[in-house]
């Protein structure tokens, strides 16, 4: 097997390879160290972080669905200060890029988070705009172009770190939101977050999740994610990190072909903790077999077919 180039330059954020792990599914990386050679990952999006520590939702927090799962963790996390002081020192010397996923309920939350993180040694910020905007009656920031753009602008004003904005799929036209956040100054777009879903226990006759509704992830949502990556790739000029149901190298390649410059693996880590390493190996093999020298060569190939 000849050597292929796997490094990707995401508008300034350089990854040693395009395989990253999705926020909320890989902890802070350390949790998977028995299964994964962490230094071989392109990047780790750490668990969604908020200004204050959060206890999260009551249990049950997850439910299994056909080829998918629902989660309503409720952003349990120790807060950004704890992250900076206690966790970051342990991961900052890793080869992978440390990307901090931030969540807030007001634009100020996001701005303050960015200001705090701007002074640290993290590699990028991922803005989770799927959170409810309390000032707008709980409507998620990511569902309206102007709200999404305001969040990005507020964060942009606080930091020169590479900014990734993570889009919510629960919208009519994802390209509209993508264009708005591009204009607002995000360097990169990641997509998709979870679809809103529910499962009901027919014996207890109530929703399984304590929170009633939760986010649908896993293979079930892959077709929606591929479609959105394909649409957004045509609508913006900035790089994309694609995710949603990626469980095999074949899935990952679908995303590259659809227009993703890098990919992120979420739920599949739970099913197979070694999946990221398998995808990495499989990706090299695919590129070799198809006579590519560089992973960037396949990005968006299905777009102009």
């Amino acid at each position, binding site marked *: 097997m000849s050597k292929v180039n796997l490094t990707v330059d995401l508008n300034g954020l350089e990854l040693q390879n395009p395989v990253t792990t999705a926020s909320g599914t890989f*902890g802070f990386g350390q949790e998977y160290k028995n299964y994964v050679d962490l230094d071989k990952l392109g990047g780790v999006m750490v668990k969604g972080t908020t200004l204050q520590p959060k206890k999260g939702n009551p*249990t049950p927090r*997850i439910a*299994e*669905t*056909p*080829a998918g*799962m629902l*989660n309503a963790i409720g952003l349990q996390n120790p807060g950004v200060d704890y992250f900076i002081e206690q966790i970051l020192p342990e991961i900052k010397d890793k080869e992978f890029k440390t990307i901090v996923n931030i969540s807030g309920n007001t634009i100020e939350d996001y701005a303050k988070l960015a200001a705090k993180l701007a002074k640290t040694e993290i590699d990028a910020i991922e803005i989770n705009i799927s959170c409810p905007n309390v000032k707008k009656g709980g409507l998620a920031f990511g569902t309206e172009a102007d709200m999404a753009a305001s969040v990005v602008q507020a964060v942009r004003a606080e930091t020169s770190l590479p900014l990734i904005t993570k889009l919510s799929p629960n919208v009519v036209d994802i390209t509209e939101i993508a264009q708005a956040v591009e204009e607002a100054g995000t360097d990169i777009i990641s997509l998709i977050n979870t679809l809103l879903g529910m499962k009901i226990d027919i014996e207890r006759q109530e929703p399984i999740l304590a929170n009633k509704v939760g986010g649908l992830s896993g293979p079930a949502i892959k077709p929606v994610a591929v479609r959105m990556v394909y649409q957004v790739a045509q609508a913006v000029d900035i790089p994309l990190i694609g995710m949603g149901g990626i469980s095999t190298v074949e899935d990952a390649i679908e995303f590259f072909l659809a227009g993703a410059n890098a990919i992120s693996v979420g739920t599949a880590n739970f099913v197979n903790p070694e999946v990221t390493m398998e995808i990495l190996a499989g990706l090299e093999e695919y590129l070799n077999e198809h006579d590519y020298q560089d992973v960037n060569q396949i990005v968006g190939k299905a777009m102009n077919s």
Partner: protein
Amino acid sequence: MAQRVIKEIIDQQKIGPGYFKLVIKVPEIVAQAKIGQFVHIKWVAEDSGADPLLRRPISLNRINPAEGTMTLVYRVVGRGTKVLSKLTAGDKLDIMGPLGTGFSISEDTNRVLVIGGGVGIAPLYPLVNELVKQNKEVILLLGAESAEEVIDLSSFEEFDLELKVATMDGSLGREGFVTDYLAELEQEIDYIYTCGPMPMMKVIRDWAIDSNVAGQASLEERMGCGTGACLSCVCQVKIDGKDGWTYKKACTAGPVFPLREVIFDE
């Protein structure tokens, strides 16, 4: 160090109504396994697609380092365990383990009460075995729906310990709840271990608090990753501090928690 391996099943037997016992050779995992730990498993079949998707956590019922084998005992309750129950020798299982923080045994305890209910009896065998080996005085209370569901009964009977059984249908031992024995305990005890249905453990916890006896309880919660990454498996545990409790991960800090600190869905 926990790891992931894919291995063939050596044997699987039905041992009661909906109860199965599965033996698998995984020396890598067995060598490190401690009592009260669990494995996170997934069947591997030719047509295994993405449905069902997730792994299933199952406690270690027998840990045999000499042979490199472990035994899992489980009850069929849903789709995943149903699929599992159909596997036979030669079929493959994908196993992550050993996982979690199991039971710990203190030198200071002497007279120890162990209470198991239903399939919650499964993880107690290695515990009782160790307690007996350490010459503790063990009082073992087992509860189940019926005689057939008292896991490992004959094995427990071989130990030198005080064994009492309660079944809901009265087919073995006393008819009723295993916790009914609590009021009749004749001797003071130093420590309690328990695993079983939540209502049972709640009664035991309240009794432990009243009787001022420390102990450990093994809990169950839905698990995503099994490695501490996803925060789906959290349990409410009392702590000193602002709110008086915190969420702890059953897959790493647990599944065994200090009995009197557990808050059961209250």
